[in-house]
C-alpha cells in the first residue's frame, strides 16, 4: 500500500489541497472504472489526468473533443499503403492505456457513443474485426458543466458508464498561492516519477476483487439503494449496476486503507462520487449527500 500512498503524495504536490479527490481518482483506477471530472475550465482537470498517467506509468493519449470530431478520429482509419498496395489500419488514440477525453460533452453524440462503446466493451470494431484495447484501459473524461453553450450533455445511460464523477473545485488559499508562485500545477508535471509498473497495477486491481464485503455491509448498501428508490427525491433510484459499482469502489477504497474487508466508512467515502451522477433529482429533491445522511448505518 506504500506505493499507493507514495503516488498520492506525489500527485498532491502538483494538485494542492485536493487529497480526497486524488484518492478517489486512484480508487477509481484500482476499481477498473472510468472517471469523469466535471468542472469549469482551468481547474486542473487535465493536470490531474496527466499526473495520474505518469505516476501509474501508463501509456497515455489525449484527445481534445470538438463538435466536428468524428468517431474515426478516435478509433482510427484504414489508409492505403502504396508500398504494399493494400489498406492498413491506422490505430487511433483510443489504443492506449489511459485516454484523456478532454471536454467530452463538446463532441457530437455520435462520437461520444463511439468512445463510450469502447469504454464498456474494452474493444473496438473496425471493418467487422474486433480489436481489443490494451490492458489496463482507463478513460478519464473531463467536461464543463452542461449549462455552457455548444455542448451535448451526456445522457444518463452514458453517464452510467463512468464509475465516478468528481469535481475539483477552487483550490484553497495556500494551494492557490503555491500555484501562483509556480510551485504547483502543470509546470511541475515533468518532475513526476513513475511509481507503478503494469504488473503492480494489475496485482492491485486483482486484490480489490478479493476484498470481503459481509452481510452487514451489504445490508447497508441495500438500504442506501432502497432509500434512493423510495425517497421520492429522484426520478429513478440506483440500478443494480450502480449497486455493483458502489460496492466495487468501496472495495478499492478499503484496499487503499489497508483493509481486506469493507466497512461502512468506505461506502460513505465513495458514495457521493459513485451515485450522484446516476441519480436524476426532481425539483426540490435531495441529493446523494442528503441520502447518505438519512440512511442508518447500523440498521
Amino acid at each position, binding site marked *: 500500500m506504500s506505493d499507493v500512498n507514495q503516488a498520492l503524495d506525489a500527485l498532491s504536490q502538483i494538485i494542492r489541497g485536493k487529497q480526497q479527490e486524488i484518492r478517489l481518482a486512484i480508487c477509481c483506477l484500482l476499481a477498473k472504472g472510468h472517471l469523469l471530472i466535471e468542472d469549469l475550465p482551468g481547474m486542473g482537470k487535465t493536470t490531474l489526468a496527466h499526473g495520474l498517467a505518469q505516476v501509474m506509468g501508463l501509456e497515455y493519449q489525449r484527445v481534445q473533443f470538438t463538435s466536428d470530431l468524428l468517431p474515426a478520429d478516435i478509433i482510427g482509419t484504414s489508409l492505403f499503403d502504396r508500398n504494399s498496395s493494400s489498406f492498413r489500419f491506422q490505430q487511433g488514440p483510443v489504443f492506449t492505456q489511459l485516454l484523456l477525453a478532454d471536454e467530452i460533452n463538446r463532441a457530437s453524440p455520435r462520437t461520444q457513443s463511439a468512445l463510450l462503446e469502447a469504454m464498456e466493451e474494452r474493444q473496438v470494431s473496425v471493418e467487422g474485426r474486433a480489436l481489443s484495447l490494451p490492458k489496463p484501459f482507463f478513460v478519464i473524461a473531463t467536461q464543463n458543466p452542461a449549462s455552457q453553450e455548444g455542448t451535448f450533455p451526456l445522457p444518463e445511460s452514458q453517464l452510467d458508464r463512468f464509475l465516478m464523477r468528481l469535481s475539483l473545485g477552487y483550490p484553497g488559499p495556500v494551494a492557490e498561492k503555491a500555484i501562483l508562485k509556480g510551485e504547483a500545477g502543470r509546470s511541475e508535471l515533468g518532475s513526476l516519477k513513475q511509481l507503478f509498473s503494469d504488473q503492480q497495477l494489475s496485482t492491485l486491481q486483482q486484490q480489490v476483487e478479493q476484498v470481503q464485503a459481509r452481510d*452487514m455491509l451489504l445490508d447497508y448498501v441495500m438500504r442506501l439503494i432502497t432509500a434512493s428508490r423510495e425517497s421520492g427525491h429522484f426520478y429513478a433510484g440506483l440500478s443494480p449496476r450502480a449497486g455493483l459499482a458502489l460496492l466495487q469502489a468501496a472495495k478499492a477504497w478499503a484496499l487503499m486503507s489497508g483493509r481486506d474487508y*469493507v466497512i*461502512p466508512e468506505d461506502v460513505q467515502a465513495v458514495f457521493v462520487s459513485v451515485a450522484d451522477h446516476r441519480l436524476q433529482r426532481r425539483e426540490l429533491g435531495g441529493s446523494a449527500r442528503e441520502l447518505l445522511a438519512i440512511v442508518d448505518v447500523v440498521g
Partner: protein
Amino acid sequence: MSKRKKEIQPLLQQEFVSRASTIWLIVALVMVQLPILREIPIAITAISVLSVCWRVMILLGRGIWPPSWLRSLLVVLGLATVAINFKPLISLESAVSVLAVGYSLKLLEMRSRRDALVVVYIGYFLIASSVLFSQTLLQTLYLFCCITVLTAAQQGLYRRTDSIKVSSTIGYAGLLALQAMPLTILLFFLVPRIGPLWSVPLPDNSARTGLTDEMTPGDIARLSKSDELVFRARFASVLPAPRDRYWRAVVLDRFDGKTWRQSDFRHSGIARGEWQSNQSSNQLSSNGWWQTRESGYNYEIMMEPTGKPWLYTLGQSASVPKESFLLRTLRLEANTPVDVRTIYNIQASVPDSSTVRPPAWLKKINLQIPDVSNSSSRKLAQQLWQQSGKVPIKMANKVMAMFREEPFFYTLNPPLLTGAGRNSIDRFLFDSRQGFCSHYAGAFVYLMRAAGVPARVIGGYQGGEVKEEENLIQVRQFDAHAWAEIWVEGQGWLRFDPTAMVSPERIESGLEAALAEEGSFLSELPLSLYRYRNSGVLNSVRLAFEQLEYRWQKSVVNYKEEQQREFLTKLLGKGNLLQKQTLALVVSIALILLVSALLLLKKRKPVSVEQALYQRFSKIMAKRGFRRLPDETELAFAQRVISESPELAGLVRQFTSGYCQLVYGGGQREDIGRLRSILRRL
C-alpha cells in the same frame, strides 16, 4: 432579492394543497353533507352545491378564485337564509346549517394547508352532529365511511406525491379509523353518561308520519302508504294469536260530525284524580277505579320516536311502566312526548271487566253525537235498537251483521266524503259503502251512540310481522287500524271490529292480503323492501337486516345511563361505581396502549446476535448521553465518544474495533463473548 424568493418558494409549495387532497376534500364534503341534507334549508344546500361546482371548475382550470366581496356576499346570504328559515333561531338545525354553510364556503378560499385543515375539522364536527338526527345502523356505517374519507383527505395534506392512489390512501385511512375502534368501544362502555349541561331544542318531530289524536276518514289510508317501523314488541313467552293483535294507542271519543278526536282531559275541568291514575310506579294493585287481575301477556316494547306522549299496549292493559301513567280511558301516556327511541315493559295485568264502570262524565262523552245531521243513520240506529230488544250486545251484533251481509267494500281509495259535510255517516252507510277501517269504526260507534250505548273509536295498529325466532312482532305504519269499543254493564269495554266483517283478511293476514285484488298495497313505494317479501333472497336479506338493526338499537343506541349502571354493576360488582368505572377506564386504556406498543415492537424485524450486541452498546452509550446519528458509522461514533469523554477511550475503542472486525471483517463467533465482557465492563 431573487435569492430570498428562492428560499420562500419551497415552503409555499409544501403548504399548498395538492390536487389529490383537494379532490379528497370535495368528496368528503359531499359525503358528510348527505345525511344532514334533510335537516338544512334547501337554499343552504344550493350554496353548498354552488361552491362545490365552483371549486371543481377551479380544479379543472376553468374557473378563477372568487373575489373576496363575492365570498363575503355568500356568507351573508347563507347566514340570512339561516336567520329566515329557523324560528326559534337557536336550535340544533340552525347550528348545523351554519356549520354546513361555513364548511362549503371554506372550499372557495382553501389554498393553504391551514385552510384545508379547518375544512377537515369542521367535517368531523358535522359527522358528529348528524348522529343527533339519526342513529340507525346504516347511518352509523355510512358515517364510518365518511370518517375514513375525511381521514384520507387529512392525511393527503401531508403527502408529497401528487398521485391519487385511491386504494392505498383509503386503505391507510380505513386502517387508522379501525385502529381507533378498540378505544372507541372502550370509551363507549366506560365513560360515565353525564346529563347535558345545557340543552338545545331537539329535532322537531312534527313532520313525522304516524297516528295523531284526530281521525278523519282517510287519515289511516295515508298511514297505510308508509312502511316505516312503529314499534317492536318482544314477548316473554307465547305470541298472541293474529286475531288478538290489537295495539291500542289513542282513544277517540269526541265526534263533531266529521272528525273523531281524543278528549283533552287536562283542560276539561274534570279533577285530575278522576281521569289520571295516581299510580306512579309499576304496581299492579287496584287503583280505585277497578280491580285488576293477572291476565294477558308480558312483553317489552321498543318504540320509535313519535313526538306524541301515548304508548302502545296490546289490548286493554292496567300495567303502568315507569315515567308514564294510565288514563281512565285505559290508555297509557308517557310523562313527556316520546322524542327518542324508548323501551318499556308491560306486565300481564288487565282490569277486571266486571268492575269497570265509567263515571257519569265519561259516559256522557261516550254518548255524545252532534244533534243535527245524519238523520237516516239515527233512524236506522233506533230501528236496530228496537229490533234487538234494547240489549247493547245484540244491537252491536246486528250492526256487525249489516256490514257483513250488505254490500260494503273494503278499499284504500274510497270516494271522498268531504262533500257530504256533517252528513258523512249517512253518505257512507247508505250511499258510497266503500271505505277503510276508519269509516267502518266511525259509523259503528255513531250507530251505537245514536242508540244510547256508550261507545268509542280506538286508534292504533292491528297485526304486525312475526319473527318467530326472536319472539318478536314488528309493527309498521301500514298496520294502522281503527276499531270500536262499547261499554256493557258487567262486561266492561268490549271490542268490536266492523272491518273484520267487511274484510276478514285484513284482520287475519294483514293489509297486503286485504288489498290483494286492488293491488294498492305500498303502491307508492316501489323501492320499499317490504313489497318484495315474497322473493326469498330479498326477504331473508330484509329480515336479517331488520334483526341486526333491532339488536343495534336495543343494545348500542339504547345503552344509556341506566343500562350502563346495570351492565357495569354486573361486570365490576357493587359499590362506588363511579370510582370503579374510572379505574377500569384508566386501566383498560393503559392495557390498550401496552398491547399496541407490544404489537409495534413485535413488527420490527428480528435482530441478529451481532445487531443485538450493538444495540446494547448503543443503549449504554445513550445512558451516558451519546446518541449515534443515523449516518454516523461505528468508528466515527466511537471517535466522537472518545473525544468527548476520554475516560471511556480504552473500552469503547476495544469494543468498536472488535465489533467492526466481527461483522465486517472475517471475525469469529468466539469474539462475541469477548465483546460481551467489554460491554459488561462498560
